[in-house]
């Protein structure tokens, strides 16, 4: 078979060819089981795909109710990229009808994070006002119950620049000691402590951290069908990262969803499968995946301080999409005293920007209910989770504090950073 042919068969749309109609994806879909508004991943995915004209507007608007969690793709035994097919159809819809103001707003989170930083106290105050939220729901259809982040008031990148200026580091002897950190927008403006802890952990491992320019991974734009913007973001990131990938330097990130975008969606959803995109994808790791890999290679120091806690862990859908198991649990298992157990639930419901939308908020809350029930049954005050929007959603559903697994790793290594109070502390010896 020629390369051309192989290429065509590998295209996302053609994976519909593999569908046997078995309904495993529909049975696993967290949305289809709770709302008649979404007929299910098989129906809007491989089934509808045969009835869509390439280039023509997709006539089925129910696809908008797909949250894009990707569980369908994960469970398909035949290799149909169901979520990817759905997302491409959504993009076709957006290309035809244009993007709504609300979806455009949610797709440009990167911009609001940056622009809002100087006004953090004002915004944080304003967005907690009942009236403001009510107005946002009525005017732009952003649910008044959706969990909004708090602006940190400073950016991770700003902190890093200052850090590098104040503490110049000697360049490493070889590229093998370098690592690129992809912080993502949320870490940059809402949760800089996660970035600071990640850098601390990487440096503790003896690695020279590089933080090249970067922009939004593009996932919010992609999920809202704005492929033009998503591809623009993606191309920028690829350009920023490809030189590192070419030198074999790993690119690690603490947001499992950003990393799945770079690793898989750029190629399978956005259709960017040039050699540069592939090279970057091959060198990209989720943060915990990277630590687990180091451990397998015998390069992860395990001199952890004990953390005597039992904590529920939620594996975000986007993390499952990596197809790498549960590296966070593998690594956290190495910490003495710490017992993390995985919550028996598929999806928290938020699915990126989905749960922020007024008409979808109730669906998102129902999808996330099993998580809330298990966290409450365990009387857990802290929940561990790799992705920011899932953490915010779990907090809003449970009142528990949610943390990224890197926070536990940092604690166990005895690492602290400024302006951060660990919610879980390790016993210092």
């Amino acid at each position: 078979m020629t390369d051309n042919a192989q290429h065509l068969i590998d295209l996302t749309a053609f994976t519909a060819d593999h569908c046997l109609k078995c309904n495993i994806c529909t049975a696993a879909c967290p949305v289809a089981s709770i709302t008649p508004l979404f007929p299910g991943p098989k129906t809007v995915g491989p089934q509808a795909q045969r009835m869509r004209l390439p280039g023509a507007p997709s006539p089925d608007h129910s696809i908008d109710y797909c949250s894009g969690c990707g569980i369908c793709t994960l469970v398909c035994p035949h290799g149909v990229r169901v979520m990817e097919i759905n997302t491409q159809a959504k993009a076709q819809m957006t290309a035809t009808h244009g993007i709504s103001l609300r979806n455009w707003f949610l797709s440009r989170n990167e911009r609001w994070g940056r622009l809002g930083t100087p006004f953090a106290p004002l915004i944080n105050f304003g967005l907690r006002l009942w009236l403001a939220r009510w107005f946002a729901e009525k005017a732009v259809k952003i649910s008044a119950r959706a969990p909004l982040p708090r602006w940190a008031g400073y950016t991770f990148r700003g902190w890093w620049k200052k850090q590098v200026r104040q503490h110049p580091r000697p360049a490493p002897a070889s590229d093998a000691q370098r690592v690129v950190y992809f912080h993502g927008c949320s870490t940059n403006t809402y949760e800089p402590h996660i970035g600071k802890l990640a850098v601390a952990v990487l440096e503790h491992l003896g690695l020279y951290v590089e933080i090249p320019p970067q922009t939004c991974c593009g996932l919010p734009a992609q999920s809202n069908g704005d492929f033009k913007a998503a591809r623009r973001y993606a191309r920028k990131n690829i350009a920023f990262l490809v030189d590192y990938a070419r030198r074999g330097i790993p690119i690690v990130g603490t947001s499992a969803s950003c990393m799945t975008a770079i690793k898989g969606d750029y190629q399978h959803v956005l259709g960017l499968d040039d050699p540069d995109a592939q090279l970057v994808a091959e060198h990209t790791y989720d943060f915990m995946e990277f630590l687990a890999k180091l451990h397998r290679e015998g390069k992860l120091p395990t001199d952890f301080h004990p953390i005597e806690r039992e904590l529920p862990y939620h594996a975000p859908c986007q993390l499952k999409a990596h197809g790498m198991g549960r590296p966070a649990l593998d690594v956290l298992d190495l910490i003495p005293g710490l017992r993390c157990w995985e919550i028996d639930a598929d999806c928290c419901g938020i699915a990126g920007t989905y749960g922020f939308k007024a008409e979808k908020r109730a669906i998102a809350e129902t999808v996330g209910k099993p998580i809330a029930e298990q966290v409450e049954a365990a009387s857990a005050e802290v929940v561990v989770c790799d992705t920011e929007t899932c953490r915010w959603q779990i907090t809003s559903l449970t009142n528990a504090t949610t943390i990224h697994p890197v926070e536990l790793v940092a604690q166990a290594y005895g690492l602290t950073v400024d302006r951060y109070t660990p919610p879980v502390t390790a016993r210092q010896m």
Partner: protein
Amino acid sequence: MTPQTVDVLVIGGGATGAAALYDLARRGVRALLVEQNDFTTGTSGRYHGLLHSGGRYAVRDPETAQECIAENTILRRITPFAIEDTGGLFVATLDDPADFPAQWVTGCAAAGIPTEQLTPEQARAQEPALTPNITAVYRVPDASVDSFDLIHGFIAAARTYGCKTLIYHRVTQLIHEGDTIVGARLEDTRTGATRIIHAACILNAAGPWVSVIAGLAGIAVEVKFDRGAMIAMNMRWVNTIVNRLRPAADGDILVPVGAVCVLGTTSVMTDHPDDYRIEPWEVSKILNEAEAVVPGIRYGRALRAWAGVRPLYESPAAHHNDTAGRAVMRTFSVLDHAALHGVRGLVTVVGGKLTTCRLMAEQTVDVVCQQIGVTAPCTTAREVLPGATTRYHRLDQRLHRLEHGETPGELICECEMVTRPQIEQAIAAYGDQPVALDDLRRDLRIGMGPCQGGFCSYRAAAILQEVKGHSALETNRAFAAFVRERYQGVRPLLWGHQLRQFYLDELIYRRTLGLDWLTGDYDPHENVYAEGDHD
């Protein structure tokens, strides 16, 4: 039973018979169409879906080429609901004779077929699946046509003028009065009941069976049976019809029709009008030829295969040494048996293409009208069929209708998007006549998608039981018959995807639903089947 009298009895529920019924109807003739099975079960239903521009015949058969382009234009106007305006490409590859495109362009120009040369880059921009090895490529006004919709359209239009139809009735005898045929004896193929129809003239449009009908009048009509196999791929690999730009040969068309892409065809001379065999070499040949134009298509999912029999006819006056199917002209002949054989009251039409069905009907009905003294001219080319929509059919219409509540109710056939009320309506349309699931398949396309009835056949069987008040055994047998029929289509393609699907379907039918026990055909104690279901 009292004999029924009509002006004209049309034999054959394919494209020509249906178009003839409509033509007669518009001329004010009371006509009845009789079909031995369901509509569209013969050659017209075993068709690839290509509405020819005529380009395929431009070099060797200019007459057919001219007819095709003229009728292509007319059918687009009068039956847009059955046509998708895909356009067509003629593609020459490195393997094809280099001098052919020039001859072909000349032929097209002479036949009045508009052609537009594209660069290989333009062609590949339009159809990314095409091979990079293109040496020449032209655009022609091909289109794809759903023959089920086309024929149903003609029938429905004829009915608005008061014409009638009778399906599952076979002509067993022609009634003579001296040298004139005055009627026919029909047998209900499902109950065995017979009836007599008197007619001033009989129009024999029985396709491959025309010689059987003519034989009942003692007239020999030499028809050659040319069998051709086709394969439907699960996805539309191309959205424009792709023809190989070379002298007509096996496997040189790819037709996007409905949700599938049909690859065709072969040409094998056979002795029987109902020889629907597909030999393994035919499947390989078709896939290999398609692979040359669309690399990788062999590795895609082949959904089902079927064969049709082209009735080819050459008048005894013509002299052709070459007896192979492709050498016989594809034009048609109207046989006025009064002039040819001294037998009045019978006119036969034979040969031709689905694309020219309206023209065949026109010319045959002209002869029939002459015999019965009707002077009204043919008006079928003028306007859209009554009661039909005037827009071109589009692939995404079904999805649109489903999504916008135009086809409400539970989804029964998921692949082809058929809902419960649609099935109930289709059953109701048969009145008190028996309905097989396979009839509903032709009416609605149930069971024609990727799972080939795996998930809809038992649901549809249950609806049939509810509506018709069948017994459980009758329902189970109807279900089993449908499963068997679908199996015929996938049998030549049991590898890869379709083997997986088939195995899943078999597990559903035979393990979960215990089909063999339900129909009473299987004796579990002896572990044998009473009938040869597992062929």
